């Protein structure tokens, strides 16, 4: 029997490990993968996992919990957890291989049937499988479901499949081969060249060529250099980086190791926001496992390269996602950005060259080094090669985590993968499509006219939008764009560090003006003043947060000016979302006087006599909507009386 050990911290022989893992895997008849991404966990997937363990044992099945490569025995099944499997809408998700079955909405009550039917008898359970909402067809597994089939999952290829806590599985899937190649067969300059040739652009939002950034750091004549993995994914509605860290953390470790080789960094930091406790746990575990096996530490794989990683949790400041602010935070200070020049690649942590790369960027590095730049460039477009992950959320049928090549159109993403737009009643209604916000609070919105624009850095940049980190929020026609502009401005304003005048004061004033519009106080100067402020903030802010804060507002003003003008001139909110411009009112004709709404109201704003029409006191009304939900007679409506 083969023993895999690291001798004196020396990394094990990769091919030997891979072979051992493959054999061990082959000894299990089936593999059950339970999605343990944050979304599915919130839905109870861990309970499902425990139930499967227990039930399978009761049924006398030999189930291996996690793969033990040193265990010779044959098994009926291998049970593992994975990171986000992507289709959050229909979780908890359970995948069964080699059957190629995907079960959706799995709950503890379903476990006995899964064990009896699928594990013991190899039969699929239709009611748990995905049913296409249009054709009604039952789909066997991921390969048949449009949501998956239309994607090109590369960064995410292992997420949702591998056990993120199994280093050996990572090695079995070519893990650390690229690092070995970079450390033992390539010079730092050669690694930088490959990255440059691949055209990989940073996935954090700015799209700066990674190879050039690494080369800039390599050129600095300093012994002490650093590489930071930016896991402070602060865009609300974005969870791509979280999924990679939860689902395939070793890809990030390996990426950093290769980056260290390319730049000469000896210390790396992974800065993860504390709102991602599972990601923190997984990446810490991966770093420890890598260290224990000799992939981190001194003289890695006998290359003479020293490199180690520290994991740090953010403490709740979106601005720390900005590279120089992150550097400041790691040094124990307030996360305040500093003006550039010099760039952080020249002077970062403690004044030393520091490369800051996004999680998704680092997760692609190993593939590029292993398979070469030309192979990488076969996907995507000329100026934006490769794929991009997106978090697809909002008023769309299939919400979840997706990945498509750059250049894919919005139409494909929204309709073919996303399954189409949901109307205000939650039912499919493509005509209700209003806009997609791309790039979060730094980005812009795309509308019907942009459906066929290729999504890549330059095409989107040309129309005043940006890829950003990859958050895609779909909005139907029940969404008030003024409210959305306000939402994003409120977010950035709240997260502004407060250092520079335009961002600190400017965003606050823009927010106040947007509130004027929403609350019916705007006048003919308001829109012009907002535009002037936006231009100033965008141009004179110190860092990217301020510079891009006005983007959603400007974009929405550009695409939906009539809607803004209705608010300003007519004091009317076309969607009825703006409370001040569309109060709740009880229709006296429909009201039966049952009093249920008054009971539900937390502000005691509803009064009336039994069997007579009730009334809402507008001054006290919070517009929370609790009454609407309680009324069985649909007597409470929004809009001017």
């Amino acid at each position: 029997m083969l023993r895999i050990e690291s001798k004196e911290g020396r990394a094990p022989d990769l091919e030997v490990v891979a072979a051992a893992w493959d054999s061990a895997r082959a000894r299990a008849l089936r593999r059950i993968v339970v999605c343990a991404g944050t979304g599915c966990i919130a839905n109870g997937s861990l309970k499902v996992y425990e139930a499967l363990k227990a039930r399978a044992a009761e049924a006398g099945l030999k189930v291996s919990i996690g793969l033990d490569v040193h265990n010779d025995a044959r098994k009926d099944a291998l049970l593992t957890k994975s990171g986000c499997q992507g289709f959050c809408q229909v979780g908890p998700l359970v995948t069964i291989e080699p059957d190629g079955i995907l079960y959706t909405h799995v709950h503890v009550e379903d476990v006995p049937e899964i064990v009896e039917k699928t594990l013991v008898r190899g039969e699929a359970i239709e009611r748990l499988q995905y049913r296409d909402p249009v054709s009604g067809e039952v789909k066997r597994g991921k390969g048949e479901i449009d949501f998956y089939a239309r994607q090109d999952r590369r960064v995410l290829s292992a997420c949702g499949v591998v056990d993120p806590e199994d280093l050996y599985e990572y090695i079995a899937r070519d893990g650390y081969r690229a690092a070995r190649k970079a450390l033992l067969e390539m010079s730092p300059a050669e690694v930088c060249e490959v990255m440059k040739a691949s055209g990989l652009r940073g996935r954090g939002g700015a799209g700066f060529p990674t190879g050039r950034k690494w080369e800039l750091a390599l050129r600095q004549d300093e012994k002490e250099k650093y590489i930071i993995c930016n896991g402070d994914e602060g865009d609300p509605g974005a969870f791509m980086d979280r999924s990679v860290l939860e689902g395939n953390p070793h890809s990030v470790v390996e990426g950093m190791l290769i980056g260290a080789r390319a730049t000469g960094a000896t210390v790396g930091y992974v800065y993860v926001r504390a709102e991602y406790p599972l990601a923190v746990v997984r990446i810490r575990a991966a770093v420890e496992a890598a260290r224990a096996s000799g992939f981190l530490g001194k003289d890695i794989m006998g290359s003479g390269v020293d490199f180690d990683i520290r994991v740090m949790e953010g403490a709740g400041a979106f601005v720390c996602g900005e590279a120089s602010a992150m550097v400041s935070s790691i040094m124990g200070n307030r996360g305040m950005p500093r003006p550039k020049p010099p760039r952080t690649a020249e002077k970062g942590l403690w004044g030393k060259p520091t490369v800051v790369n996004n999680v998704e960027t680092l997760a692609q590095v190993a593939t590029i080094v292993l398979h070469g730049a030309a192979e990488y460039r076969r996907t995507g477009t000329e100026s934006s090669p490769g794929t991009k992950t997106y978090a697809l959320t909002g008023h769309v049928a299939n919400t979840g985590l997706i990945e498509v090549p750059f250049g894919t159109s919005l139409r494909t993403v929204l309709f073919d993968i996303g399954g189409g737009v949901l109307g205000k009643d939650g039912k499919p209604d493509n005509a209700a499509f209003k806009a997609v916000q791309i790039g979060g609070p730094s980005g812009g919105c795309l509308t019907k006219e942009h459906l066929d624009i290729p999504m890549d850095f330059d095409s989107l940049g040309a129309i005043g939008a940006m890829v950003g980190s990859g958050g895609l929020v779909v909005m139907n026609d029940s969404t008030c764009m003024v409210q959305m502009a306000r939402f994003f401005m409120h977010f950035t304003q709240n997260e502004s560090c407060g250092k520079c005048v335009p961002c600190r004061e400017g965003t606050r004033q823009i927010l106040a003006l947007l509130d004027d519009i929403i609350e019916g106080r705007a006048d003919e100067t308001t829109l012009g003043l907002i535009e002037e402020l936006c231009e100033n903030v965008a141009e004179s802010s110190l860092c990217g947060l301020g510079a891009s804060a006005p983007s959603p507002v400007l974009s929405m003003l550009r695409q939906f000016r009539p809607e803004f003008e209705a608010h300003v001139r007519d004091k009317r909110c076309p969607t009825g979302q703006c409370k001040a411009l569309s109060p709740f009112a009880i229709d006296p004709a429909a009201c039966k006087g049952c009093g249920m709404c008054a009971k539900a109201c937390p502000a005691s704003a509803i009064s009336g006599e039994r069997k007579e029409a009730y009334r809402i006191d507008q001054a006290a009304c919070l517009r929370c909507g609790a009454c609407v939900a309680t009324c069985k007679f649909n007597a409470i409506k929004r809009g001017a009386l």
Partner: protein
Amino acid sequence: MSTCKESEALRFEAVVAILDRYERDPSRLIPILQAVQEEYRYLPEEILTYVAVSLDLSPAKVYGVATFYGHFSLEAKGKYVIKVCDGTACHVKGSTGLVDALRAELRLEGKKKTTDDLLFTLETVSCLGACGLAPVMTVNDEVHGLATPAAALEIVKSIREKEAAHAAN
């Protein structure tokens, strides 16, 4: 009889242990504060001053760092911490109504986040990453998805009842 706050003493010992663990390195101030906050559930003023002195940093600087980051609280938190997610997806699905209803029910106005009886703290957080369940709220990290104002108020009510029953016993 005695009000020996042994837990106070233990917590203070824990602070010293935390400082040791991070080698009293001033650049590790943030992880140190995170660990201290886990111990005390917030950052008491005198502990922050002690940390400052131990790290040879000015108290004003430590105060500045503690007040910059959203996770640090210089006020004691309630027994039940309710977090309502206001990420884009949740927002679009109505999290504001949820927050308003809770604030009214718990009588929290302006900047006030914690009820006077120290039973509840209400916070808005951006993106818990469970967007498929929007709108999402958590109570002491227990996730309640597809939350409605009515459901939220029910949860508050049942907690109050439970606590009242406890106190009576």
